[in-house]
């Protein structure tokens, strides 16, 4: 299954939820925000959404900036 994560095409070998993707990438859910197909995802729904073929996922967090 091919999905686009942060602008890069990636292939996932099994069907997973957004919450599982975050776990796999070792990310702290409290320090990131996910945009799933252009919609911001409320953190409480991360385990309700199954990633599917062709999805676009953006994972963002804060960095230094002026």
């Amino acid at each position: 299954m091919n999905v686009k994560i942060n602008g890069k095409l990636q292939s996932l070998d099994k069907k997973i939820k957004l919450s599982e993707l975050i776990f796999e990438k070792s990310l702290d859910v409290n320090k990131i925000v996910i945009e799933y197909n252009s919609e911001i995802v409320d953190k409480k729904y991360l385990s309700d959404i199954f990633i599917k073929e062709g999805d676009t996922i953006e994972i963002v967090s804060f960095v230094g900036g002026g």
Partner: protein
Amino acid sequence: MLDILKIADKEITNRLFIGTGKFPNKPIIKEVMEKSESQVITVALRRVDLESKEENIIDYIPKTCTIMTNTSGARNAQEAIRIARLAKACGCGNWIKLEVISDNKYLLPDNIETLKATETLVKEGFVVLPYMSPDLYVAKELVKAGAATIMPLGSPIGSNRGLKTEELVKILISEIPIPIVVDAGLGSPSDAARCMELGCSAVLVNTAIATAKDPVGMAHAFSLAVRAGRLAFCNGIPLESKFAQASSPLTGFLRDDE
């Protein structure tokens, strides 16, 4: 009496705002904030680098600080609005340093797109501090749109060239009823003091502190300069005159009149 700057529901007593880009490491940001006693800090929002484990900048910002997310990277109003919404969802409040830039050489803000984004974001409940080229009519429109402050540039971002826009900033201070916060280009503490002496409500400094030999010491210097400039403004700076005005009495000289 405490000299308080009120922006939205915050009462700010330190008028130096600090940007967090370009610091040599993240732990130093905590020291910078403590030494300068700055209360407002900016951060940016970016894609997480999934290949490298990086510490999160929020861990180094004192909990008492007000975090203001910038919309850097936005080339138009729509992109800025998207970044602002993501920042809010990230859970660090609703203060946005709005910047819309599509010119990569001078990084000058696009006033028209900035105004459009301000209108939308204010309606959505954001506290919007727009970075702009100092134009009186755009500033008036930003006030009408509900901006919390106006943030004119001193000179191009990161250029350390100081307050090149002084005459235009003076006009904004005179005509605009909300706080004027000079953002960008201030290179040394004397630049910051100058802004405050003119009557700016605050300044935002990043590069000049972050790239100094000792950023903590430089943050302290900027903090003192901002305080000195503000004190000078509040106490009434005397007018300039073309000719000399003697400071000592012009009578009782130890000489006989000719």
